[in-house]
């Protein structure tokens, strides 16, 4: 019984991180129609920056202050996103979508090497944050309290994004732009600015995902590429461009993953991709996707 609780917590932890990542990917696709191949690398960048800042500050400041530094990675990635969209993506909106995929793939390659040069091959972690919070007891097992914080952040992020998109002025404009970009501009919306903001928001979520994961799992080279394919699985199951889909997809992927690992570890990834492929074949727009 306790082990079940533990597994559920693990799944929720994983789902929180995946949701942040997939929701950003989905948001960018929903508004701009671009699949951002570099999304996983931006997540990794968020993880590295946070780990680096925390490691740097750990000796100097009180642990409570360290928590304020947690979003550093997210902010750096947002700043990167705000530069990337106008410089690399904007000239390509009118070109065939292969080119948009290629340019973001190029960005992925560049970011991977940049992280390799800056942080090298040694894993970098922000474990002081994890240690500061200690552990909780789940029956006879122990569980890191920090992971509960991550789950809470995931829940807040889901609610926050939902409220942002469905309850704010910017959210209405965002949805309007994603539904009819031409009409949005004819009504006086600065579509270019909406695009930068949407891309920045998507990047912020990716960076935040990386930042919150790094106190419990060290940042390593290749983590971004690995997680990108999982984020694809999530958005494919949930439906590209749908936030509800990203949430449900993240939960499905996390729980399935935890379950499969219990029974037949070797098939973990195969089962996830198989679900994604099956969803794409039966319902190409995913569970919550907008019909085309």
């Amino acid at each position, binding site marked *: 019984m306790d082990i079940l609780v533990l597994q559920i917590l693990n799944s929720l932890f994983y789902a929180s991180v995946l949701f942040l990542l997939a929701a950003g990917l989905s948001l960018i696709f929903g508004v701009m129609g671009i699949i951002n191949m570099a999304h996983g690398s931006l997540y990794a960048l968020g993880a590295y920056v946070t780990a680096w800042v925390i490691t740097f500050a750990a000796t100097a400041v009180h642990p409570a202050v360290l928590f304020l530094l947690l979003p550093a990675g997210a902010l750096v990635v947002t700043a990167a996103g705000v530069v990337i969209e106008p410089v690399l993506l904007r000239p390509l909106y009118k070109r065939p979508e292969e080119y948009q995929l290629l340019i973001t793939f190029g960005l992925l390659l560049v970011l991977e090497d940049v992280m390799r040069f800056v942080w090298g091959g040694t894993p970098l972690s922000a474990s002081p944050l994890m240690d500061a919070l200690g552990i909780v007891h789940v029956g006879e097992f122990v569980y890191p309290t920090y992971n509960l914080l991550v789950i809470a952040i995931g829940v807040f992020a889901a609610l926050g994004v939902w409220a942002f998109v469905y309850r704010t002025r910017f959210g209405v404009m965002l949805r*309007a732009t994603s539904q009819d970009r031409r009409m949005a*501009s*004819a009504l006086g919306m600065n579509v270019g600015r909406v695009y930068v903001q949407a891309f920045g928001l998507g990047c912020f979520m990716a960076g935040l995902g990386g930042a919150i994961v790094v106190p419990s799992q060290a940042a390593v080279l290749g983590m971004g590429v690995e997680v990108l394919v999982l984020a694809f699985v999530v958005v494919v199951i949930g439906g590209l461009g749908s936030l509800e889909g990203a949430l449900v997809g993240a939960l499905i992927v996390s729980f399935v993953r935890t379950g499969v690992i219990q029974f037949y570890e070797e098939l973990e990834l195969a089962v996830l991709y198989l679900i994604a492929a099956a969803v794409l074949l039966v319902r190409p727009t995913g569970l919550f996707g907008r019909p085309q």
Partner: protein
Amino acid sequence: MLEVTQINTFRGPAHILHGLTLSVNEQEVVCLVGRNGAGKTTTIDSIMGLLPLRSGQIVFHGENITGLAAHMRARRGMGYAPEDCGIFPELTVEENLMISRWLANASGRVKEAAFTGSDAQERAFSVFPEVRTLTHREGLHLSGGQKKMVAIARAMTLSPSLLLLDEAFEGLAPAVVTRFIDAVIKIKEMGISILMAESNLANASRIADRLYAIDRGEIIFHGDPKEALKNEEVMKALRG
């Protein structure tokens, strides 16, 4: 208020507008009449800034707006209702109108007149009271006629000085067309000028103060609507 001079517009490689010139004055309804494919929509889109000009000039309220992006033109007082209405399908009618209210308030033009987006929306409702009952409906679930009304109401909520209406009567029953014609006259009385693209000369002649006939991207007639009805060549070009 609007002076379009010698514009040339391309769609991809196709040269659509050939040195087109037209103008709209204050408090005036101008109709642009032509067959399908004559270049009406291209003209409206060029004025709105949705298509780039190859050459020529567009002046609005004495300001050269030729190089301005569409959203800047909207903020200077152009309201636009496209042929397909452009209602955001997954937004409610209220949200569709909300966008216009915010943008009207943000444009700055409105503040000077102490006339807010809400006032503009009320004025739109006075023309189309039906829209008031539709506010909770999603754009996707509107009928063709309702979409046309919402599109015009939404453009009016921007508090424009000029409305660009592309085929506003298309697909409407004859009785409803009369209803819309009354609406257009009402809008004009509110001090808003209107440029309408219309394929039906009879409808156009019922409301137009002035009329341009367009064929193959060129203006072939300009003047009083009654003159157009008498002009053999215009009638021939419009019938095809």
